[in-house]
Protein backbone atom coordinates (compact mmCIF):
# COMPACT_ATOMS: atom_id res chain seq x y z
CA UNK A 1 0.00 0.00 0.00
CA UNK A 2 1.31 3.42 -0.90
CA UNK A 3 0.05 6.55 0.73
CA UNK A 4 0.93 9.64 -1.27
CA UNK A 5 0.79 12.20 1.48
CA UNK A 6 2.28 10.06 4.17
CA UNK A 7 -0.34 11.17 6.62
CA UNK A 8 -1.69 7.71 7.20
CA UNK A 9 0.49 5.96 9.70
CA UNK A 10 -2.02 3.35 10.68
CA UNK A 11 -3.31 0.40 8.72
CA UNK A 12 -6.20 1.48 6.52
CA UNK A 13 -7.88 -1.85 6.52
CA UNK A 14 -10.06 -1.48 9.56
CA UNK A 15 -13.70 -1.92 10.17
CA UNK A 16 -15.48 -0.07 12.92
CA UNK A 17 -15.29 -3.09 15.17
CA UNK A 18 -11.59 -3.59 14.64
CA UNK A 19 -8.87 -1.60 16.39
CA UNK A 20 -6.51 0.34 14.17
CA UNK A 21 -3.37 0.07 16.12
CA UNK A 22 -3.63 3.37 17.93
CA UNK A 23 -3.39 3.32 21.71
CA UNK A 24 -6.93 3.30 22.91
CA UNK A 25 -6.41 2.80 26.59
CA UNK A 26 -6.96 6.43 27.51
CA UNK A 27 -9.84 6.72 25.15
CA UNK A 28 -11.94 3.86 26.38
CA UNK A 29 -13.23 5.75 29.35
CA UNK A 30 -16.87 5.38 30.12
CA UNK A 31 -19.08 8.37 29.49
CA UNK A 32 -19.15 10.56 32.52
CA UNK A 33 -15.62 9.63 33.61
CA UNK A 34 -13.62 12.84 33.51
CA UNK A 35 -10.35 11.38 34.83
CA UNK A 36 -7.42 12.90 33.00
CA UNK A 37 -4.69 10.87 31.34
CA UNK A 38 -1.89 12.91 32.83
CA UNK A 39 -1.39 15.57 35.47
CA UNK A 40 1.59 17.06 33.70
CA UNK A 41 0.80 20.57 32.56
CA UNK A 42 3.33 21.80 30.07
CA UNK A 43 1.46 24.75 28.69
CA UNK A 44 0.39 27.66 30.86
CA UNK A 45 -2.22 28.70 28.36
CA UNK A 46 -4.13 25.49 28.82
CA UNK A 47 -3.89 25.37 32.57
CA UNK A 48 -7.25 27.07 32.86
CA UNK A 49 -9.05 24.16 31.28
CA UNK A 50 -12.72 24.70 31.89
CA UNK A 51 -13.52 21.02 31.71
CA UNK A 52 -11.21 19.57 34.25
CA UNK A 53 -8.52 21.69 35.70
CA UNK A 54 -5.52 20.61 33.62
CA UNK A 55 -4.56 18.73 30.46
CA UNK A 56 -1.22 17.46 29.20
CA UNK A 57 -0.29 19.29 26.01
CA UNK A 58 -0.06 16.04 24.06
CA UNK A 59 -3.59 15.14 25.06
CA UNK A 60 -5.04 18.32 23.68
CA UNK A 61 -6.43 18.03 20.16
CA UNK A 62 -8.27 21.33 19.87
CA UNK A 63 -7.56 24.41 21.95
CA UNK A 64 -9.78 27.42 21.30
CA UNK A 65 -8.49 30.45 23.19
CA UNK A 66 -10.47 33.64 23.72
CA UNK A 67 -12.02 33.51 20.26
CA UNK A 68 -14.16 36.34 18.99
CA UNK A 69 -16.08 36.02 15.76
CA UNK A 70 -18.98 37.73 14.05
CA UNK A 71 -20.30 38.76 10.68
CA UNK A 72 -22.15 41.84 9.54
CA UNK A 73 -23.24 43.59 12.74
CA UNK A 74 -23.85 40.34 14.60
CA UNK A 75 -21.43 38.98 17.12
CA UNK A 76 -21.36 35.18 17.35
CA UNK A 77 -18.55 34.54 19.84
CA UNK A 78 -17.26 36.85 22.56
CA UNK A 79 -14.26 35.18 24.12
CA UNK A 80 -14.80 31.49 23.57
CA UNK A 81 -12.50 29.05 25.39
CA UNK A 82 -12.71 25.37 24.57
CA UNK A 83 -10.49 22.35 24.90
CA UNK A 84 -11.01 18.99 23.23
CA UNK A 85 -8.98 16.11 24.59
CA UNK A 86 -7.63 13.13 22.72
CA UNK A 87 -9.71 9.97 22.65
CA UNK A 88 -12.81 11.49 24.20
CA UNK A 89 -16.27 12.39 22.98
CA UNK A 90 -16.78 16.09 23.50
CA UNK A 91 -20.26 17.48 23.02
CA UNK A 92 -21.17 21.05 22.22
CA UNK A 93 -24.74 21.88 23.01
CA UNK A 94 -26.70 25.05 22.80
CA UNK A 95 -29.83 26.66 21.43
CA UNK A 96 -30.26 27.06 17.68
CA UNK A 97 -28.34 29.99 16.25
CA UNK A 98 -25.81 30.02 19.05
CA UNK A 99 -22.92 29.30 16.69
CA UNK A 100 -22.33 25.57 17.06
CA UNK A 101 -21.74 24.95 13.37
CA UNK A 102 -19.69 28.15 13.19
CA UNK A 103 -17.48 26.71 15.94
CA UNK A 104 -16.86 23.64 13.78
CA UNK A 105 -15.95 25.87 10.85
CA UNK A 106 -13.45 27.66 13.08
CA UNK A 107 -11.94 24.41 14.32
CA UNK A 108 -11.54 23.08 10.79
CA UNK A 109 -9.99 26.30 9.48
CA UNK A 110 -12.84 27.15 7.11
CA UNK A 111 -13.13 30.57 8.72
CA UNK A 112 -10.75 32.58 10.87
CA UNK A 113 -11.58 34.28 14.16
CA UNK A 114 -11.43 38.07 14.36
CA UNK A 115 -9.57 37.71 17.66
CA UNK A 116 -8.11 34.85 19.63
CA UNK A 117 -6.50 31.60 18.60
CA UNK A 118 -7.64 28.24 17.33
CA UNK A 119 -4.91 25.67 17.96
CA UNK A 120 -5.27 22.18 16.50
CA UNK A 121 -2.68 19.55 17.36
CA UNK A 122 -0.49 22.33 18.69
CA UNK A 123 -0.63 24.39 15.49
CA UNK A 124 -2.22 27.82 15.38
CA UNK A 125 -4.50 27.69 12.33
CA UNK A 126 -3.92 31.39 11.62
CA UNK A 127 -0.26 30.68 10.85
CA UNK A 128 -0.96 27.85 8.41
CA UNK A 129 -1.29 28.01 4.63
CA UNK A 130 -3.90 26.20 2.56
CA UNK A 131 -1.78 23.08 2.05
CA UNK A 132 -0.96 22.84 5.77
CA UNK A 133 -4.64 23.23 6.65
CA UNK A 134 -5.39 20.47 4.13
CA UNK A 135 -2.70 18.39 5.83
CA UNK A 136 -4.54 18.74 9.14
CA UNK A 137 -7.89 17.97 7.53
CA UNK A 138 -6.54 14.68 6.22
CA UNK A 139 -6.33 13.66 9.87
CA UNK A 140 -9.97 14.64 10.44
CA UNK A 141 -13.29 13.31 9.26
CA UNK A 142 -16.46 15.34 9.25
CA UNK A 143 -20.06 14.21 9.20
CA UNK A 144 -22.27 16.95 7.82
CA UNK A 145 -25.82 17.56 8.96
CA UNK A 146 -27.23 16.59 5.55
CA UNK A 147 -24.53 14.04 4.71
CA UNK A 148 -23.15 16.25 1.89
CA UNK A 149 -22.67 13.22 -0.36
CA UNK A 150 -21.49 13.97 -3.88
CA UNK A 151 -24.69 13.57 -5.85
CA UNK A 152 -23.05 12.55 -9.13
CA UNK A 153 -21.32 9.56 -7.52
CA UNK A 154 -22.91 6.40 -6.15
CA UNK A 155 -22.47 5.27 -2.55
CA UNK A 156 -19.39 3.18 -3.32
CA UNK A 157 -17.64 6.01 -5.19
CA UNK A 158 -18.56 8.50 -2.47
CA UNK A 159 -16.82 6.40 0.15
CA UNK A 160 -13.91 5.69 -2.19
CA UNK A 161 -13.52 9.38 -3.04
CA UNK A 162 -10.92 10.34 -0.37
CA UNK A 163 -8.91 7.18 -1.11
CA UNK A 164 -8.82 7.92 -4.83
CA UNK A 165 -7.83 11.53 -4.20
CA UNK A 166 -5.13 10.97 -1.59
CA UNK A 167 -3.69 7.52 -2.25
CA UNK A 168 -2.68 5.42 -5.22
CA UNK A 169 -3.95 2.19 -3.76
CA UNK A 170 -4.78 -0.57 -6.26
CA UNK A 171 -8.46 -0.98 -7.09
CA UNK A 172 -8.90 -4.34 -5.30
CA UNK A 173 -7.61 -2.82 -2.06
CA UNK A 174 -9.83 0.26 -2.44
CA UNK A 175 -12.76 -2.06 -2.98
CA UNK A 176 -11.93 -4.03 0.16
CA UNK A 177 -11.57 -0.90 2.29
CA UNK A 178 -14.73 0.74 0.96
CA UNK A 179 -16.85 -2.37 1.43
CA UNK A 180 -15.41 -2.86 4.93
CA UNK A 181 -16.32 0.69 5.91
CA UNK A 182 -19.76 0.34 4.38
CA UNK A 183 -20.19 -2.93 6.23
CA UNK A 184 -19.32 -1.20 9.49
CA UNK A 185 -22.23 1.21 9.01
CA UNK A 186 -24.53 -1.58 7.82
CA UNK A 187 -24.78 -0.41 4.22
CA UNK A 188 -22.62 -2.80 2.25
CA UNK A 189 -25.73 -3.82 0.35
CA UNK A 190 -26.39 -0.21 -0.68
CA UNK A 191 -22.99 0.24 -2.32
CA UNK A 192 -24.35 0.89 -5.78
CA UNK A 193 -27.30 3.10 -4.92
CA UNK A 194 -27.19 6.79 -5.81
CA UNK A 195 -27.44 9.37 -2.99
CA UNK A 196 -30.92 10.37 -4.20
CA UNK A 197 -32.13 6.83 -3.51
CA UNK A 198 -31.10 6.91 0.17
CA UNK A 199 -33.15 7.91 3.20
CA UNK A 200 -31.80 10.66 5.47
CA UNK A 201 -30.47 8.14 7.99
CA UNK A 202 -28.82 6.03 5.30
CA UNK A 203 -27.21 9.09 3.74
CA UNK A 204 -25.74 10.03 7.10
CA UNK A 205 -24.38 6.53 7.60
CA UNK A 206 -22.78 6.60 4.14
CA UNK A 207 -21.29 9.98 5.02
CA UNK A 208 -19.97 8.43 8.23
CA UNK A 209 -18.35 5.60 6.25
CA UNK A 210 -16.76 8.22 4.00
CA UNK A 211 -15.59 10.21 7.02
CA UNK A 212 -13.77 7.20 8.49
CA UNK A 213 -12.40 5.75 5.27
CA UNK A 214 -9.02 7.48 5.78
CA UNK A 215 -8.88 6.37 9.41
CA UNK A 216 -9.01 9.89 10.88
CA UNK A 217 -7.80 10.75 14.36
CA UNK A 218 -10.68 13.15 14.93
CA UNK A 219 -14.29 12.79 13.84
CA UNK A 220 -16.51 15.84 13.80
CA UNK A 221 -20.28 15.39 13.81
CA UNK A 222 -22.51 18.33 12.91
CA UNK A 223 -26.03 17.76 14.26
CA UNK A 224 -25.91 14.00 13.63
CA UNK A 225 -29.32 13.28 15.18
CA UNK A 226 -31.48 15.84 13.37
CA UNK A 227 -34.50 14.41 11.57
CA UNK A 228 -33.72 10.76 12.28
CA UNK A 229 -36.27 8.11 13.20
CA UNK A 230 -35.61 6.33 16.51
CA UNK A 231 -33.96 3.32 14.83
CA UNK A 232 -31.60 5.42 12.70
CA UNK A 233 -30.87 7.61 15.71
CA UNK A 234 -29.96 4.57 17.78
CA UNK A 235 -27.71 3.30 14.99
CA UNK A 236 -25.90 6.63 14.71
CA UNK A 237 -25.48 6.81 18.49
CA UNK A 238 -24.04 3.29 18.55
CA UNK A 239 -21.71 4.10 15.68
CA UNK A 240 -20.40 7.26 17.34
CA UNK A 241 -19.66 5.29 20.50
CA UNK A 242 -18.14 2.46 18.48
CA UNK A 243 -15.86 4.81 16.54
CA UNK A 244 -14.63 6.23 19.82
CA UNK A 245 -14.23 3.05 21.81
CA UNK A 246 -13.21 0.71 19.00
CA UNK A 247 -10.94 2.97 16.99
CA UNK A 248 -9.92 5.47 19.67
CA UNK A 249 -11.12 8.34 17.53
CA UNK A 250 -11.50 11.69 19.25
CA UNK A 251 -15.05 12.81 18.61
CA UNK A 252 -16.52 16.29 18.54
CA UNK A 253 -20.32 16.29 18.45
CA UNK A 254 -22.39 19.38 17.93
CA UNK A 255 -26.04 18.95 18.71
CA UNK A 256 -28.94 20.21 20.78
CA UNK A 257 -30.25 16.75 21.53
CA UNK A 258 -29.46 16.64 25.23
CA UNK A 259 -30.72 13.16 26.03
CA UNK A 260 -28.81 11.50 23.20
CA UNK A 261 -25.58 13.33 23.98
CA UNK A 262 -25.82 12.47 27.66
CA UNK A 263 -25.51 8.79 26.78
CA UNK A 264 -22.28 9.07 24.80
CA UNK A 265 -20.38 12.24 25.75
CA UNK A 266 -17.43 12.31 28.12
CA UNK A 267 -17.23 16.12 28.22
CA UNK A 268 -19.94 18.63 27.46
CA UNK A 269 -20.00 22.34 26.81
CA UNK A 270 -23.13 24.42 26.82
CA UNK A 271 -22.94 27.49 24.59
CA UNK A 272 -25.14 30.53 24.83
CA UNK A 273 -24.74 34.20 23.99
CA UNK A 274 -21.39 33.68 22.30
CA UNK A 275 -19.74 32.06 25.30
CA UNK A 276 -19.45 28.80 27.14
CA UNK A 277 -21.91 29.09 29.99
CA UNK A 278 -21.30 25.67 31.50
CA UNK A 279 -19.04 22.70 31.04
CA UNK A 280 -18.50 19.31 32.58
CA UNK A 281 -19.83 15.82 32.24
CA UNK A 282 -23.43 15.48 31.05
CA UNK A 283 -24.38 14.41 34.59
CA UNK A 284 -22.81 17.53 36.03
CA UNK A 285 -24.69 19.69 33.55
CA UNK A 286 -27.95 17.96 34.39
CA UNK A 287 -27.37 18.70 38.09
CA UNK A 288 -26.35 22.31 37.49
CA UNK A 289 -28.17 25.05 39.35
CA UNK A 290 -27.53 27.66 36.67
CA UNK A 291 -30.77 28.98 35.21
CA UNK A 292 -29.53 28.92 31.61
CA UNK A 293 -28.42 25.29 31.98
CA UNK A 294 -31.66 24.26 33.65
CA UNK A 295 -33.69 25.94 30.92
CA UNK A 296 -31.76 24.18 28.18
CA UNK A 297 -31.73 20.79 29.85
CA UNK A 298 -35.48 20.91 30.55
CA UNK A 299 -36.44 22.59 27.28
CA UNK A 300 -38.38 25.36 29.01
CA UNK A 301 -39.37 28.45 27.00
CA UNK A 302 -39.20 30.58 30.13
CA UNK A 303 -35.69 31.50 31.20
CA UNK A 304 -32.59 33.51 30.35
CA UNK A 305 -32.56 32.32 26.72
CA UNK A 306 -35.35 34.33 25.05
CA UNK A 307 -37.83 32.57 22.79
CA UNK A 308 -38.23 35.72 20.70
CA UNK A 309 -35.39 37.01 18.52
CA UNK A 310 -34.38 40.44 19.88
CA UNK A 311 -35.97 43.27 17.96
CA UNK A 312 -34.09 46.30 16.76
CA UNK A 313 -37.16 48.39 16.02
CA UNK A 314 -38.38 51.14 18.29
CA UNK A 315 -41.20 50.76 20.81
CA UNK A 316 -43.34 52.86 18.44
CA UNK A 317 -43.07 50.10 15.82
CA UNK A 318 -43.85 47.43 18.31
CA UNK A 319 -46.69 49.08 20.16
CA UNK A 320 -48.24 51.47 17.68
CA UNK A 321 -47.33 49.91 14.32
CA UNK A 322 -45.77 53.28 13.44
CA UNK A 323 -43.09 53.01 10.78
CA UNK A 324 -41.92 56.56 11.45
Amino acid at each position, binding site marked *: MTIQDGSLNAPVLNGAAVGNGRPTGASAQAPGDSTLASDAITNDAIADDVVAGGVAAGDLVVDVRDVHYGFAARSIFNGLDIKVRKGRITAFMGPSGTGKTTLLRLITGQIAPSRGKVVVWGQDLATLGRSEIYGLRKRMGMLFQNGALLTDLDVYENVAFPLRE*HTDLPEPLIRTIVLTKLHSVGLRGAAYLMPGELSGGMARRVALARAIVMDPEVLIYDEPFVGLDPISLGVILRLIRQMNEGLGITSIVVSHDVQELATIAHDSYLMSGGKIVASGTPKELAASGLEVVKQFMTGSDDGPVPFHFPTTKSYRDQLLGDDE
Partner: protein
Amino acid sequence: MSAVVSDNLVVGSLRKIGLVTLFLVRILGQCGPALARPSLVVHQIFNAGARSLVIIMLAGLFVGMVLALTGIDLLKRFGSEDVLGVAAALGLIKELGPVVTALLFAGRAGTSLTSEIGLMRATDQLTAMEMMAVDPMRYVAAPRFLGGIIAMPLLAGIFDIVGLFGAQLVGVQMMGVNAGTFWSQMQGSVHIDDVNEGIIKSVAFGFACTLIAVYEGYNAAPTAEGVGLATTRTVVASAVLTLLIDYLLTAAFL
Protein backbone atom coordinates in the same frame (compact mmCIF):
# COMPACT_ATOMS: atom_id res chain seq x y z
CA MET B 1 -27.09 61.01 -5.47
CA SER B 2 -26.47 59.87 -9.06
CA ALA B 3 -22.74 60.44 -8.58
CA VAL B 4 -22.82 58.10 -5.58
CA VAL B 5 -24.73 55.50 -7.56
CA SER B 6 -22.32 55.70 -10.51
CA ASP B 7 -19.37 55.54 -8.10
CA ASN B 8 -20.82 52.42 -6.53
CA LEU B 9 -21.41 50.98 -9.98
CA VAL B 10 -17.81 51.66 -11.02
CA VAL B 11 -16.37 50.35 -7.76
CA GLY B 12 -18.68 47.33 -7.86
CA SER B 13 -17.75 46.56 -11.47
CA LEU B 14 -14.03 46.90 -10.78
CA ARG B 15 -14.39 44.71 -7.72
CA LYS B 16 -16.20 42.05 -9.74
CA ILE B 17 -13.57 42.16 -12.48
CA GLY B 18 -10.88 41.76 -9.82
CA LEU B 19 -12.66 38.82 -8.21
CA VAL B 20 -13.21 37.08 -11.55
CA THR B 21 -9.53 37.64 -12.42
CA LEU B 22 -8.40 36.13 -9.12
CA PHE B 23 -10.77 33.23 -9.70
CA LEU B 24 -9.30 32.80 -13.19
CA VAL B 25 -5.77 32.72 -11.78
CA ARG B 26 -6.80 30.04 -9.27
CA ILE B 27 -8.58 27.99 -11.89
CA LEU B 28 -5.66 28.22 -14.33
CA GLY B 29 -3.40 27.01 -11.54
CA GLN B 30 -5.56 23.91 -11.19
CA CYS B 31 -5.89 23.18 -14.93
CA GLY B 32 -2.63 21.18 -14.97
CA PRO B 33 -3.68 18.82 -12.17
CA ALA B 34 -7.16 18.57 -13.74
CA LEU B 35 -5.67 17.59 -17.10
CA ALA B 36 -3.75 14.85 -15.30
CA ARG B 37 -7.17 13.27 -14.69
CA PRO B 38 -8.49 13.30 -18.29
CA SER B 39 -11.60 11.31 -17.40
CA LEU B 40 -12.95 14.28 -15.41
CA VAL B 41 -12.42 16.64 -18.37
CA VAL B 42 -13.87 14.18 -20.89
CA HIS B 43 -16.93 13.79 -18.68
CA GLN B 44 -17.41 17.56 -18.69
CA ILE B 45 -16.92 17.77 -22.47
CA PHE B 46 -19.73 15.24 -22.71
CA ASN B 47 -21.91 17.23 -20.29
CA ALA B 48 -21.33 20.61 -21.91
CA GLY B 49 -20.93 19.41 -25.48
CA ALA B 50 -22.77 16.21 -26.29
CA ARG B 51 -25.79 17.18 -24.22
CA SER B 52 -26.06 20.49 -26.12
CA LEU B 53 -25.92 18.82 -29.54
CA VAL B 54 -29.64 18.67 -30.25
CA ILE B 55 -30.31 22.34 -29.60
CA ILE B 56 -27.15 23.37 -31.46
CA MET B 57 -28.01 21.28 -34.53
CA LEU B 58 -31.62 22.44 -34.62
CA ALA B 59 -30.57 26.07 -34.25
CA GLY B 60 -27.87 25.62 -36.91
CA LEU B 61 -30.35 24.14 -39.35
CA PHE B 62 -32.86 26.98 -38.96
CA VAL B 63 -30.23 29.71 -38.96
CA GLY B 64 -28.76 28.29 -42.18
CA MET B 65 -32.20 28.14 -43.79
CA VAL B 66 -33.05 31.71 -42.79
CA LEU B 67 -29.65 32.87 -43.95
CA ALA B 68 -30.30 31.34 -47.38
CA LEU B 69 -33.74 32.91 -47.62
CA THR B 70 -32.61 36.41 -46.71
CA GLY B 71 -29.44 35.96 -48.73
CA ILE B 72 -31.19 34.93 -51.91
CA ASP B 73 -33.67 37.77 -51.56
CA LEU B 74 -30.81 40.25 -51.31
CA LEU B 75 -28.59 38.68 -53.96
CA LYS B 76 -31.41 38.41 -56.50
CA ARG B 77 -31.66 42.19 -56.50
CA PHE B 78 -28.11 42.31 -57.84
CA GLY B 79 -28.41 39.16 -59.98
CA SER B 80 -25.80 37.42 -57.85
CA GLU B 81 -27.60 34.29 -56.62
CA ASP B 82 -24.52 32.28 -57.55
CA VAL B 83 -22.58 33.58 -54.56
CA LEU B 84 -25.23 32.41 -52.09
CA GLY B 85 -22.96 29.59 -50.97
CA VAL B 86 -20.11 32.00 -50.21
CA ALA B 87 -22.38 34.43 -48.36
CA ALA B 88 -23.91 31.67 -46.27
CA ALA B 89 -20.56 30.04 -45.54
CA LEU B 90 -18.79 33.24 -44.52
CA GLY B 91 -21.76 34.40 -42.46
CA LEU B 92 -21.92 31.10 -40.64
CA ILE B 93 -18.23 30.34 -40.19
CA LYS B 94 -17.04 33.82 -39.21
CA GLU B 95 -20.01 35.20 -37.36
CA LEU B 96 -23.25 33.35 -36.78
CA GLY B 97 -21.73 29.98 -35.96
CA PRO B 98 -19.55 31.10 -33.05
CA VAL B 99 -21.95 33.79 -31.77
CA VAL B 100 -25.20 31.84 -31.87
CA THR B 101 -23.46 28.74 -30.51
CA ALA B 102 -22.08 30.82 -27.62
CA LEU B 103 -25.48 32.29 -26.84
CA LEU B 104 -27.09 28.84 -26.90
CA PHE B 105 -24.18 27.40 -24.92
CA ALA B 106 -24.68 30.04 -22.24
CA GLY B 107 -28.37 29.19 -22.09
CA ARG B 108 -28.00 25.42 -22.12
CA ALA B 109 -24.61 24.43 -20.69
CA GLY B 110 -23.77 27.66 -18.82
CA THR B 111 -26.94 27.66 -16.75
CA SER B 112 -26.50 23.96 -16.10
CA LEU B 113 -22.94 24.52 -14.86
CA THR B 114 -23.93 27.43 -12.62
CA SER B 115 -26.91 25.71 -11.05
CA GLU B 116 -25.01 22.43 -10.58
CA ILE B 117 -22.05 24.08 -8.84
CA GLY B 118 -24.35 26.45 -6.92
CA LEU B 119 -26.37 23.52 -5.61
CA MET B 120 -23.16 21.72 -4.69
CA ARG B 121 -22.32 24.81 -2.63
CA ALA B 122 -25.82 24.95 -1.12
CA THR B 123 -25.77 21.27 -0.14
CA ASP B 124 -22.29 21.47 1.43
CA GLN B 125 -20.71 19.24 -1.21
CA LEU B 126 -17.95 21.77 -1.90
CA THR B 127 -17.35 22.21 1.83
CA ALA B 128 -17.26 18.43 2.23
CA MET B 129 -14.54 18.26 -0.44
CA GLU B 130 -12.58 20.96 1.36
CA MET B 131 -12.93 18.97 4.57
CA MET B 132 -11.59 15.90 2.75
CA ALA B 133 -8.58 18.06 1.77
CA VAL B 134 -9.67 18.02 -1.88
CA ASP B 135 -9.60 21.43 -3.53
CA PRO B 136 -12.97 21.92 -5.29
CA MET B 137 -11.20 24.22 -7.74
CA ARG B 138 -9.27 21.19 -8.96
CA TYR B 139 -12.03 18.60 -8.80
CA VAL B 140 -15.09 20.70 -9.74
CA ALA B 141 -14.17 24.04 -11.30
CA ALA B 142 -11.12 23.31 -13.48
CA PRO B 143 -12.52 20.23 -15.33
CA ARG B 144 -15.75 22.09 -16.10
CA PHE B 145 -13.80 25.13 -17.28
CA LEU B 146 -11.62 23.04 -19.59
CA GLY B 147 -14.60 21.00 -20.76
CA GLY B 148 -16.47 24.15 -21.78
CA ILE B 149 -13.50 25.63 -23.63
CA ILE B 150 -12.96 22.41 -25.58
CA ALA B 151 -16.66 21.81 -26.26
CA MET B 152 -17.46 25.27 -27.65
CA PRO B 153 -15.38 25.16 -30.90
CA LEU B 154 -16.61 21.62 -31.54
CA LEU B 155 -20.20 22.75 -31.14
CA ALA B 156 -19.58 25.80 -33.36
CA GLY B 157 -18.11 23.51 -36.03
CA ILE B 158 -21.18 21.28 -35.93
CA PHE B 159 -23.41 24.37 -36.02
CA ASP B 160 -21.60 25.56 -39.16
CA ILE B 161 -21.91 22.21 -40.93
CA VAL B 162 -25.59 21.80 -40.16
CA GLY B 163 -26.16 25.48 -41.00
CA LEU B 164 -24.56 25.02 -44.43
CA PHE B 165 -26.77 22.00 -44.98
CA GLY B 166 -29.80 24.17 -44.11
CA ALA B 167 -28.64 26.91 -46.48
CA GLN B 168 -28.16 24.36 -49.24
CA LEU B 169 -31.57 22.88 -48.51
CA VAL B 170 -33.30 26.22 -49.04
CA GLY B 171 -30.97 27.76 -51.63
CA VAL B 172 -30.39 24.74 -53.87
CA GLN B 173 -33.30 22.40 -53.22
CA MET B 174 -36.07 24.99 -52.77
CA MET B 175 -34.95 28.20 -54.52
CA GLY B 176 -33.22 26.56 -57.44
CA VAL B 177 -29.64 27.82 -57.09
CA ASN B 178 -27.27 25.60 -59.05
CA ALA B 179 -25.69 23.05 -56.73
CA GLY B 180 -22.32 23.06 -58.52
CA THR B 181 -22.10 26.83 -58.35
CA PHE B 182 -23.21 26.87 -54.73
CA TRP B 183 -20.44 24.53 -53.58
CA SER B 184 -17.69 25.58 -55.97
CA GLN B 185 -18.08 29.28 -55.19
CA MET B 186 -17.90 28.42 -51.53
CA GLN B 187 -14.81 26.28 -52.03
CA GLY B 188 -13.08 28.98 -54.02
CA SER B 189 -13.83 31.94 -51.78
CA VAL B 190 -13.72 30.66 -48.23
CA HIS B 191 -10.12 30.62 -46.98
CA ILE B 192 -8.44 28.98 -44.06
CA ASP B 193 -8.13 32.41 -42.38
CA ASP B 194 -11.92 32.63 -42.31
CA VAL B 195 -12.13 29.26 -40.64
CA ASN B 196 -9.39 30.24 -38.17
CA GLU B 197 -11.30 33.40 -37.29
CA GLY B 198 -14.35 31.32 -36.44
CA ILE B 199 -12.30 28.90 -34.36
CA ILE B 200 -10.54 31.70 -32.44
CA LYS B 201 -13.86 33.39 -31.78
CA SER B 202 -15.51 30.24 -30.52
CA VAL B 203 -12.56 29.45 -28.22
CA ALA B 204 -12.73 33.01 -26.84
CA PHE B 205 -16.48 32.74 -26.32
CA GLY B 206 -16.06 29.33 -24.71
CA PHE B 207 -13.44 30.75 -22.37
CA ALA B 208 -15.64 33.71 -21.36
CA CYS B 209 -18.95 31.85 -21.07
CA THR B 210 -17.53 28.92 -19.11
CA LEU B 211 -15.51 31.16 -16.80
CA ILE B 212 -18.62 33.20 -15.98
CA ALA B 213 -20.75 30.09 -15.49
CA VAL B 214 -18.26 28.41 -13.17
CA TYR B 215 -17.51 31.62 -11.26
CA GLU B 216 -21.17 32.42 -10.67
CA GLY B 217 -21.95 28.88 -9.54
CA TYR B 218 -18.92 28.69 -7.27
CA ASN B 219 -19.77 31.99 -5.60
CA ALA B 220 -23.55 31.62 -5.53
CA ALA B 221 -25.30 32.30 -2.25
CA PRO B 222 -26.17 28.87 -0.80
CA THR B 223 -29.93 29.34 -1.11
CA ALA B 224 -32.55 28.60 -3.76
CA GLU B 225 -32.77 32.33 -4.51
CA GLY B 226 -28.97 32.64 -4.62
CA VAL B 227 -28.63 29.85 -7.17
CA GLY B 228 -31.46 31.32 -9.24
CA LEU B 229 -29.87 34.75 -9.28
CA ALA B 230 -26.47 33.31 -10.14
CA THR B 231 -27.99 31.42 -13.07
CA THR B 232 -29.63 34.59 -14.36
CA ARG B 233 -26.37 36.50 -14.04
CA THR B 234 -24.61 33.78 -16.02
CA VAL B 235 -26.95 34.12 -19.01
CA VAL B 236 -26.96 37.92 -19.02
CA ALA B 237 -23.22 38.36 -18.51
CA SER B 238 -22.34 35.62 -21.03
CA ALA B 239 -24.57 37.12 -23.73
CA VAL B 240 -23.25 40.65 -23.26
CA LEU B 241 -19.64 39.52 -23.05
CA THR B 242 -20.01 37.29 -26.13
CA LEU B 243 -21.28 40.17 -28.23
CA LEU B 244 -18.61 42.54 -26.89
CA ILE B 245 -15.81 40.09 -27.60
CA ASP B 246 -17.33 39.40 -31.02
CA TYR B 247 -17.14 43.07 -31.91
CA LEU B 248 -13.55 43.38 -30.68
CA LEU B 249 -12.37 40.24 -32.49
CA THR B 250 -14.21 41.10 -35.71
CA ALA B 251 -12.58 44.53 -35.67
CA ALA B 252 -9.20 42.93 -34.97
CA PHE B 253 -9.49 40.48 -37.87
CA LEU B 254 -10.47 43.11 -40.45
